[in-house]
């Protein structure tokens, strides 16, 4: 203790700053601080807005694909035209082509118009017959072939209308645009309105979008994602049965058994690099190795599945290794301590404990594979496929499409109605992805253990 006090007079030269008044420099620094925060907030806001706009644009464009306009009219299946021999022989009925059914539909529509007194000024005969989709006659024919007894009866047919009329009720086509369009006319739309007024034309929920195969350029109203969903499902099965066992086995070896040497180092670097190789390169590999070298068929789900397997392996390996690493060493030590072999400690104790993490990683890897498009373009999955593939094993070698490729395919078509279909297919794809991710989150929440 000293008694010396600091001489007050010798204080540092009085600065003009005060604790109570904010000086110029501080104000600047505080303003900079505020600006910086605002930048950060607006960056997050931009990202979120982008997400919202993206979702909104896809959903508002695609929701129309789930609704479809149908015409319900009584159709007389004239026996004189459909079964000339009159003996209801299915072989004879099969010889009658779709054009005949198209004419029947036209006649029925004309009859309905005269019955209900619908007259549209300046409507051409072509406008009337084109109101009904080209697909409708084929559907009617299939119905008759399935049940030849219908010939000669009058049935209530529910038929698709042409894509433009359908678009009219979804706001895609207007009277003005119809006047400029060679595929429809304002008169046709007025006829549709008149039929709607009589309750014969209605826009309803469209299950067939999920079950129908793709349709040709001229009939977007009949196109669906059935084959694409099945093809995607087959590919996911291949990925599940190949990528998961191989990926888990590889990670077990690398994490638990591999000696630390050059070779394992190379494998590890290799895996992290494979995870970042552009997906299209895997497509080139698939084309060269599986199709040109091994001679597997083009557009087959098996080839797509193999390519996606190679692509998802790194993802699954990285996730599995993280899950294995999270199991504390005390578990292994305890198992070894009571006399288990290394293999037993891994398979009886570590692996079951790591299972939730492995499952989560697997599902996320599968979700990634489900949305992948570029490699599938190169192995011929862009082909137009109208037939459903057979049941698995053989079906894996049949041509099929895949959901994301179907989207790409539809974007390349001329008719704007296909854009709506493409967005609709995206919605289906996103719903699948959402479900998979929700399952992954659920598993993680439910089984995750903190050690």
């Amino acid at each position, binding site marked *: 203790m000293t008694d010396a006090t600091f001489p007050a007079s010798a204080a540092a030269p009085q600065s003009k700053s005060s604790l109570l008044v904010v000086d110029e420099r501080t104000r600047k620094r505080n303003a900079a601080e505020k600006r910086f925060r605002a930048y950060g907030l607006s*960056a997050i806001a931009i990202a979120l807005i982008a997400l919202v706009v993206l979702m909104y644009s896809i959903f508002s464009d695609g929701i129309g694909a789930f609704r479809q306009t149908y015409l319900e009219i009584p159709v007389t299946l004239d026996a004189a035209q459909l079964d000339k021999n009159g003996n209801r022989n299915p072989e004879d009925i099969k010889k009658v082509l779709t054009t005949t059914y198209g004419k029947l539909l036209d006649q029925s529509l004309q009859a309905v118009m005269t019955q209900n007194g619908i007259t549209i000024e300046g409507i051409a005969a072509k406008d009337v017959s084109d109101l009904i989709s080209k697909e409708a006659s084929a559907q009617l024919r299939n119905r008759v072939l399935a049940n030849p007894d219908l010939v000669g009866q009058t049935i209530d047919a529910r038929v698709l209308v042409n894509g433009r009329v359908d678009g009219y009720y979804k706001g895609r086509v207007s009277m003005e645009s119809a006047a400029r369009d060679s595929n429809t006319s304002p008169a046709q739309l007025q006829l549709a309105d008149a039929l709607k007024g009589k309750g014969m034309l209605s826009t309803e929920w469209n299950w067939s979008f999920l079950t129908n195969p793709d349709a040709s350029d001229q009939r977007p109203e009949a196109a669906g994602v059935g084959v694409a969903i099945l093809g995607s499902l087959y590919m996911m099965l291949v990925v599940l049965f190949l990528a998961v066992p191989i990926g888990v*086995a590889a990670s077990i070896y690398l994490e638990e058994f591999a000696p630390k040497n050059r070779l394992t180092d190379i494998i590890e670097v290799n895996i992290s690099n494979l995870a970042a190789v552009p997906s299209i390169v895997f497509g080139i590999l698939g084309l060269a190795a599986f199709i040109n070298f091994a001679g597997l068929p083009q557009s087959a789900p098996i080839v797509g599945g193999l390519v996606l397997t190679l692509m998802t392996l790194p993802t699954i390996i990285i996730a599995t290794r993280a899950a294995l690493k999270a199991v504390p060493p005390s578990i292994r030590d305890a198992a070894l301590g009571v006399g288990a072999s290394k293999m037993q400690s891994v398979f009886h104790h570590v692996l079951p404990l790591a299972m939730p993490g492995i499952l989560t990683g697997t599902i996320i890897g599968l979700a990634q594979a489900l949305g992948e498009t570029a490699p599938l373009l190169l192995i011929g999955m862009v082909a137009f496929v109208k037939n459903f593939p057979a049941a698995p094993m053989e079906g894996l070698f049949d041509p099929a499409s895949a959901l994301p490729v179907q989207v790409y395919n539809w974007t390349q078509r001329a008719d704007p109605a296909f854009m709506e279909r493409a967005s609709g297919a995206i919605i289906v794809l996103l719903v699948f992805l959402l479900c998979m991710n929700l399952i992954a989150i659920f598993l993680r929440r439910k089984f995750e253990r903190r050690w």
Partner: protein
Amino acid sequence: MPVSWTLLLVLAMAVAGFVIGRSRVLAAAGGDSRLLHSRTNYYGWNIALYTAVPALFLIAIWLFAQPGANRILVAGVALAVAAVGLIWSLQRTAPDFRARNAVESFVRGLLIMCSSIAILTTAGIVFSMLFETGNFFSQYPWQDFFFGTTWSPRFGGGSQLGILPLVWGTLYISFIALAVSIPIGLFAAIYMSEYASPRMRGFAKPMIEILAGIPTIVYGLFALITVGPMLRDYFAQPLGLGNSGSSVMTAGLVMGIMLIPFVSSLSDDIINAVPQSLRDAALGLGSTQSETVRNVVLPAALPGIVGAILLAASRAIGETMIVVLGAGAAARMDLNPFEAMTTITVKIVSQLTGDTDFAAPETLVAFALGLTLFVVTLGLNIVALYVVRKYREQYE
């Protein structure tokens, strides 16, 4: 059908082998499992593995190498192999046989095989592309490929296949994408790690990561039907810069959105890895939070962030669907960002889809493009991973 039946038969034999082996070894020990070397099930597993695995491998490899092979022959040989494995391992089964060790070394072998598939994939990628690229360069001079400034493939001969316009398009689009995603991603990461309350972070982080889970075809469609027409109607046409819906700007913007979560989550990890003591020291000296971030945290995290940016760049260069749908197909070297240009990946797709003739340089050029892409992205990845790893070690 024979293949499915063969598979089922082989599996049935394996199950039968398991049961027989197990009961036989137990009988040999007089029903007292304590007299056996290993636990009873291992004897069964030993037989099942030796029966099923070689036969299944044979089927898989044979069908892969020769898909048109006679299915009956394949089935016969596979069943014979399974039978040989079954009989041989049954004969080895005796109470003093070290079954556990046999099973464990077998499983170990399987594990090693599975982990070598990663290497095989890389080798497959490199060889499949090297081989076809060699074919390409034997038909088309490499100087013209690497230094040619015109891209006009003509099926029928006389095509010019210079890569430079494609490289220009790729770099231009990637540049715009990075110019969009780096500031947004970086600022979002800074805000979330330094400022945001736990609640806000818990909401915003998953939301931004949703962007990362959306497939690229969705972004492609977004570029095609929303962003492209919007940019054309509100920017390109009023400014007189062109009237194409697909443009460098469209693809770049949308790709930038796609890369935001990539940049932000990587940078977030890296910023979080900067030790708290550095921040505390800076704040203790009286700097504001933003000054701490700018002068202390970011310089400390810089190498890691550079690594993240390099990874994002390699993503941008290799991205396919967005540019296929958003950038157009015209190979052009131009500065106008509202003009349609094209990239390496677009040309790989267009040269390899549809009718392809694997003797023509117009098709083979896709492999040379693919190899170029692979080498460039691999280089970026290796550097980036090295930088990120080095950085992580610095503070551990």
